[in-house]
């Protein structure tokens, strides 16, 4: 892991894979969503609304996955002082927030015809909304630390670690509390072919998740490159200004 601590080495790795991740992820996502919209069969109970599954579920997983990236990167920043860890955490925050919001919006669009309500204050929906607010707070904290110019991102890193408490709450909310939301229908059993989900939905969902995940990875790499470039530009301009002042 520390092999990538050098920004130059990281950039050598990131430059050739950023565009392919975005292109392959975009093509796969569009193909699966087109199939989901046009060719996927309607479901016996959910009817046509089951097609929202191919966006809603990957968005939920990536919303939680984004905060897991923030938590792991924050741990790496606090414990091992990995120089790219804080940058990775900041880069994952916006796409994580986006996918959390996308999960909430598509869930609401699914809930209205399925439950008769746009929103209910149950454990799953509320904990997902809390995750979105946590992202907003993290982005504000990290931006404030960056603007202060002291490079002190410890508070944001600690917040990233503490906020991870919400991830298992989201996952187990439908088990711990009564909920309109259905319990998890995909687990490790899906890998052994014992999923309660019909294969056409399961494979479509896994393909959509792969496509959105590649896009998520490409966006995180692009945002890491942006932050690194901004930091290098600022450092260079500051050095120039000091040189002029000394001269």
């Amino acid at each position, binding site marked *: 892991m520390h092999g990538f601590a050098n920004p130059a080495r990281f950039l050598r790795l990131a430059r050739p894979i*950023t565009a392919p991740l*975005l292109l392959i992820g*975009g093509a796969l*996502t*569009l193909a699966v*969503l087109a199939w989901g*919209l046009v060719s996927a069969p309607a479901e016996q*109970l*959910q*009817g*046509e*609304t089951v*097609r*929202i599954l191919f*966006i*809603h579920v990957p*968005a939920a997983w990536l919303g939680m996955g984004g905060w897991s990236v923030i938590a792991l990167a924050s741990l790496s920043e606090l414990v091992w002082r990995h120089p790219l860890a804080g940058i990775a955490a900041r880069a994952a925050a*916006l*796409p994580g927030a*986006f996918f959390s*919001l*996308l999960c909430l*919006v*598509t869930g609401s*669009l*699914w809930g*209205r*015809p*399925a*439950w*008769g309500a746009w929103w209910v204050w149950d454990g799953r929906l509320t904990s997902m909304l809390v995750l979105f607010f946590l992202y907003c707070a993290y982005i504000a904290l990290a931006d404030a630390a960056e603007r202060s110019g002291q490079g002190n991102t410890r508070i944001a890193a600690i917040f990233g670690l503490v906020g991870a408490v919400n991830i298992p709450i989201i996952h187990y909310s439908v088990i711990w509390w009564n909920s309109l939301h259905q319990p998890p229908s995909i687990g490790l059993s899906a890998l052994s072919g014992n999923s309660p989900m019909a294969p056409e939905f399961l494979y479509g969902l896994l393909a959509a998740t792969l496509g*959105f995940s590649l*896009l998520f990875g*490409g*966006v995180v790499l*692009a*945002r890491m*490159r*942006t*932050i690194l*470039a*901004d930091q*290098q*530009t600022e450092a*260079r*301009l500051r050095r*120039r200004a000091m040189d002029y002042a000394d001269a």
Partner: protein
Amino acid sequence: MHEGLNQLAFVYAAYAVGVGGTLALVIHSWTAMRRAEARRERSREL
């Protein structure tokens, strides 16, 4: 399942939000990266 609602309207809305939002996120991140790296190159020439 509530009858009387056009289910496909909700599906189209979800897909529009999902595809449009993801596209906006990707384009914003890509153009921001290109601009930042171009700024870095220009700062080298100063």
